[in-house]
């Protein structure tokens, strides 16, 4: 009944075939080609010849070349990691607060839940431009409000000043993706049996004790899974930074760096080497996180 030649198994592979062929064509093959281009001196749109690891690191006449010798690459790695850690941390804390609020019973809860979906649904490019306008150094509403409240004495060039540019990116990302975090955590909260909280309250535990001793341990798994998906999304950030601050070095992410080399400089070899490095870095970080955090990747939250 369960041999490999079972007709059922054969039809399973037949049913899978169209999807697998398409996925191999649009994801598998292009990924392999990208890795290959990384080992060639190809220009954009042309075939190149094999150059080994020269695109990664090479030494000619005592001078170092390649992605790994490029200070801009390392800055983009630092920017991306900093952005990922800071934005995902803030989103997790805020998402938790929003989820706890939405878990309480009040009139209009359904409407509020719908309203917080708006930032999630607005295209990233559009939200970047909306915030670009709000963060405008001369005519922006944020500077105007802060000046009126007396919190700052002169306008801040949010997206142009290297000291604040990456924070501007974080602000927009937090605005856009906290709803996702909150909804996932809320779904986790609503799975918990109410009796546990009753019991804790009868035992005389305060709200904070209940949260840290009862709620948090019970939803840890949900939070960890939500965090990894947010982190993977943050590690590949492109749209937001490209539109908010263009190709500025102060905010350049790894994806922006790779596309800059690949398309703007037409350096298919260098760009593909950088893209391959991103793929490797993200894979390694993911495996580490899953192993160290003991996350069970059963199902996928979207």
């Amino acid at each position, binding site marked *: 009944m369960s041999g490999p030649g079972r007709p059922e198994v054969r039809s399973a592979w037949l049913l899978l075939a169209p999807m697998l062929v398409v996925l191999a064509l649009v994801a598998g093959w292009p990924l392999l080609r990208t890795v290959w281009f990384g080992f060639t001196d190809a220009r954009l749109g042309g075939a190149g010849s094999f150059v080994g690891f020269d695109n990664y690191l090479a030494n000619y006449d005592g001078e170092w070349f390649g992605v790994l010798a490029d200070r801009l690459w390392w800055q983009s790695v630092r920017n991306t990691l900093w952005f990922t850690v800071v934005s995902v941390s803030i989103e997790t804390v805020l998402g938790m607060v929003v989820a706890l609020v939405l878990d309480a019973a009040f009139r209009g809860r359904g409407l509020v*839940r719908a309203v917080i979906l708006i930032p*999630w*649904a607005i295209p990233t490019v559009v939200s*970047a431009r909306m915030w670009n*306008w709000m963060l405008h150094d001369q005519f922006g509403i944020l500077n105007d409000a802060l000046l009126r409240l007396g919190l700052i004495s002169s306008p801040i060039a949010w997206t142009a000043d290297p000291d604040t540019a990456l924070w501007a990116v974080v602000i927009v990302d937090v605005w856009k993706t906290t709803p996702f975090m909150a909804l996932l955590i809320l779904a986790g909260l609503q799975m918990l049996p109410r009796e546990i909280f009753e019991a804790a309250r009868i035992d005389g535990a305060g709200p904070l004790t209940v949260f840290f001793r009862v709620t948090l341990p019970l939803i840890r798994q949900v939070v960890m899974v939500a965090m990894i998906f947010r982190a993977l999304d943050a590690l590949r950030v492109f749209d937001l930074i490209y539109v908010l601050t263009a190709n500025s070095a102060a905010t350049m992410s790894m994806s922006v760096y790779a*596309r800059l080399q690949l398309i703007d400089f037409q350096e298919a070899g260098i760009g593909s080497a950088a893209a391959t490095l991103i793929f490797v870095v993200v*894979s390694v970080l993911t495996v580490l996180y899953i192993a160290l955090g003991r996350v069970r990747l059963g199902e996928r939250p979207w």
Partner: protein
Amino acid sequence: MVRRLLGRLGLWLLVAAIVVFAVFPFYYAIVTSFRSGSELFTVAYLPDRLDFDNYAAVFRNQPFGRNILNSIAVAAVVVALSLFLGFTAAYALGRIRFRGRSPLLLACLAVSMFPHVAVLSGLFELIRTLGLYNTLPGLVLANLVLTLPFTVWMLTTFMRELPRELEEAALVDGATPWVILWRIFLPMMAPAAVTTGLLAFVVAWNEFLFALTFTLSNEMRTVPVAIALMSGATGYELPWGNIMAASVVVTVPIVLLVLVFQRRIVAGLTAGAVKG
């Protein structure tokens, strides 16, 4: 009693803060879209006029109507293809036991989460070789990278929740998997397909990296690229009124969609997240 009242007050303040934080940028875009010229050099917290000049300018200065149609066409075809391919695959992954099932599901998960820039040069070459550079079919092809793996994953999750007896009775009657798939599972999966399709539509509608890289002319751009590349006549001062009008035009339908299908979208976003 006083403590209860204070708690209630605090809750409402938090709710108000959350709502203001979520909708303010959109509200401010609407306010700005009705103002033009030197009015934009002063900040307006409340709507002070109703003027559709910016909206007319958006459609006059660039083929924005065409861009919207491009986005709708690409997203619609991508959703249809993803649902068809995803549905047959999800039946195999969700209802038939065979070796290699878990690795396949994990591969889908990996593809949906990997950095898209990793396939950029390979896809560029593929699209050029197929003669699809600067065409909508090229964008459809590229968008499948984003939507197909998660469609498969989500439909598989939904497919597993259906009772086992469904196909057992049909199998006894001698029906083939193909018949079971289309006659029995398709009707039952309609709600799941709507949820999955909605999420896939939002993903394809928002896609930027591929649309930016694989199109060249204004006429072939999708909405996100058109808005990102919108610049002024002098190229020095950005036409903020126009940009905000364009942003409002493309955001209103999405906001309506979200408000109408709120329950389905939340169900889709959290599908399987809290089980197992």
